């Protein structure tokens, strides 16, 4: 079980075995997170830079907590204070960071491809924390973890991804990751919220009718309606979106009794999910996903930073 990755940028570079290694390692961090002292010395002396060039509260907090619980030294870099605002190029910024002798860069950027560029010029380990509309691999891994934890086997699961596929970087990693793990993926969205080539993501089915597919799904993954990314009104109103694509109490009878509800957060209550479904004690794993974010990010950093050769012993 060799894990030979330096970066986590494109989920399609990971095999099913690699992904399982991340998920199984994440389980081991559960015990650490349930202790009175929620910290292990594993990454003592390692410096991780959180380079968030786009607003992010949840992902950044999750990474920061994961870093602290692994005893890494972390530096927050980015936002309005960055030197890019003063006209410095990305490459110069990264080279400056590298001159600080850092070990890992966590990157969030509004432009797709920035994490790869940073990996090419930096020599540090890079984790993509969301780039443009491209990928968000750590989100995909925490989603897989949450689903796997309940369903115990990912292969063969029927997963519906519902909502704003076109603007979603979550989909860019989630759908390929689900396919790598052997799930059957159905994309559900109004035509205006689909990308020009939905097939490129690798989904098995594309439909505009939620009610038709809902009875088949083991997992319903609701995407956030990203109001800040909407221009040109892809649907007449949020209320109409809610009626056609919202997962509401009225739709529960259509769902399988054991179907799960996932959401990457933050939720627009009353738009893609109503409160009944978002807080559903049996179906909703939304808060488990938040916790899984800590566990899987600890596992990702542990696996990417550890072991320059294959270990033989535990």
């Amino acid at each position: 079980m060799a894990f030979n990755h330096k970066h986590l940028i494109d989920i399609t570079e990971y095999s099913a075995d690699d992904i399982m290694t991340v998920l199984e390692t994440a389980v081991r961090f559960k015990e650490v997170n349930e202790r009175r002292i929620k910290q292990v010395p594993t990454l003592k002396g390692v410096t991780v830079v959180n380079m968030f060039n786009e607003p992010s509260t949840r992902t950044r907090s999750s990474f920061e907590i994961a870093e602290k619980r692994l005893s890494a030294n972390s530096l927050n870099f980015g936002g309005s204070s960055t030197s890019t605002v003063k006209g410095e190029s990305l490459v110069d910024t990264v080279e400056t960071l590298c001159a600080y002798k850092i070990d890992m860069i966590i990157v969030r950027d509004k432009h797709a491809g920035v994490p790869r560029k940073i990996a090419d010029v930096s020599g540090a380990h890079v984790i993509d924390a969301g780039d443009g509309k491209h990928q968000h691999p750590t989100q995909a891994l925490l989603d897989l973890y949450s689903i796997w934890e309940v369903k115990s086997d990912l292969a063969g699961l029927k997963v519906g991804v519902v909502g704003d596929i076109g603007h979603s970087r979550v989909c860019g990693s989630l759908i390929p990751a689900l396919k790598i793990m052997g799930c059957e993926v159905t994309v559900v969205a109004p035509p205006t919220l689909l990308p020009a080539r939905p097939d490129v993501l690798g989904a098995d089915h594309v439909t505009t009718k939620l009610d038709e597919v809902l009875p088949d799904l083991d997992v319903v993954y609701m995407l956030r309606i990203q109001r800040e990314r909407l221009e040109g009104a892809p649907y007449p109103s949020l209320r109409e979106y809610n009626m056609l694509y919202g997962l509401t109490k009225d739709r529960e009878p259509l769902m399988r009794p054991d179907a799960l509800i996932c959401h990457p957060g933050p939720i627009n209550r009353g738009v893609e999910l109503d409160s009944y479904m978002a807080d559903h004690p049996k179906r909703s794993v939304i808060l488990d996903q938040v916790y899984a974010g800590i566990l899987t990010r600890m596992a990702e950093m542990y696996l990417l930073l550890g072991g320059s050769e294959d270990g033989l012993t535990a």
Partner: protein
Amino acid sequence: MPGDGRPHGGEREGANRRGGVRVACTIPNERGGCMTEAGTVKTVCMDADEIERSLTRIAHQILETNKGAGNIALVGIVTRGDLLAKRLAEKIEAIEGTKVPLGKLDISFYRDDFATHLAPEVHSTDIFFDLDGKDVVLVDDVLYTGRTIRAALDALMDIGRPATVQLAVLVDRGHRELPIRADFVGKNVPSSADENVRLFLEETDGKSEVEILEMTPGSRAGSAPLGGE
């Protein structure tokens, strides 16, 4: 090996004739030994009976030192120490009639060689009782450099505050790199640094014995992989 009842000269072949060696052993080398992933089997230094007797003695010693089983907790280091701790707990129960708390500890997150050797599989740490105030007996299979124990002590202290921590090992092979010693030792096995001393247990490997292996390039000292070679 003084005391193990076998002549020195015949150790390598002797090991082969014992029949316990080797399910996984298929490539005979020029010295009559057998190649495994971990190295060539040079000698079996403890067999199943010897392991059993040592554990019985250690169980008695633990009880003697701690004046009974009242405040003891056993914590085994995965992947072999946890199995030994379980056996010790059974023996202590048989002697004193007391069930002692039993836990297992994985030290992957505490290793000092994390940057060069990533644990291929992180096992679980399960300590479902309060360590505070307990007399904790750490249990491991082979005591070598002492670095595993250093890591285990750090891990224990993060989980709770034991009154005392004692160390029981089945084999002490020497070569300490840190000021650590065991309180209870099954057997002292002099070894050289290019040898590997490994415990195999019935539960995971289908046989119980301690073997001295000549290390092949690329292999490292440590516990045998779970499920044998």
